[in-house]
């Protein structure tokens, strides 16, 4: 069997890029998500990147690690990285890991963009 286990919707809204992975982010899916996020950060352009987690019902520590990685790469690249739309299971693993205060977390992707001033900027 070989199945990356995840699809990632990729949208541009103003100066922001919104990535919406769909499916469980576990050890099976994390590598594919990592590739997509890396690609977007390396391509430059967007000053704001939102990872919208509304279609992610489940995340384990490999998903959390992928997002911690993404945050670091974003900082280096001068990009503001947001997480948005965390469901209950995803929120709870960030809380358990005490990373809920380390990330910029918004209720929706649009809220993240607004708070970044991305639509005017």
């Amino acid at each position: 069997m070989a199945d990356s286990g995840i699809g990632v919707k990729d949208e541009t809204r103003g100066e922001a890029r919104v990535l919406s992975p769909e499916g469980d982010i576990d050890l099976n899916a994390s590598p594919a998500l990592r590739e997509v996020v890396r690609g977007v950060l390396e391509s430059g352009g967007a000053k704001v990147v939102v990872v919208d987690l509304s279609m992610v019902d489940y995340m384990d520590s490999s998903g959390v690690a992928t997002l911690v990685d993404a945050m670091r790469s974003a900082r280096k690249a001068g990009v503001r990285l947001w997480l948005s739309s965390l469901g209950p299971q995803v929120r709870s693993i960030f809380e358990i890991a005490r990373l809920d205060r380390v990330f910029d977390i918004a209720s929706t992707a649009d809220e993240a963009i607004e708070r970044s001033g991305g639509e005017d900027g």
Partner: protein
Amino acid sequence: MKAPVELSIQSDPVYLAGARELIAALCRRVGFQDEACGQVALAVDEALANVIRHGYDRRTDGPIRVLVWPESEPGVGGIRIVIEDEAKQVDPASIKSRDLDDVRPGGLGVYIMKRVMDGVAHEKREGGVGMRLTMHRAASSDAGVGGSGAEANDG
């Protein structure tokens, strides 16, 4: 006692979702609330991911067995889970969670398992090869409840 439920998978991450769903369904039958079912499934997912990454160094054809004793008799309600592999042996003392104040990718799996289960113990299997992990959680447990528990080292 032979486990009433036993799952054998190859060490391929594509099978993690199946293992999680099996465990969550068994927890529901034992009378766990939905949140607790999800937490026990998460602990098993983390344990299997560690066997795949650290035990088998991401080889996808190593055998892993998950033995489950769901118990819904009044008073002794809960679930006991044993995970056995045929991967390399390590000192159980070397399997430990990192300091959470050090924000880096990784180092969360063992912390999560300890946080959401009532007991987590690694040991070397008899015969020189493979590790065994034993975990349990009582239906009445408050492990994993709330945003920050006893094990979170807030100093």
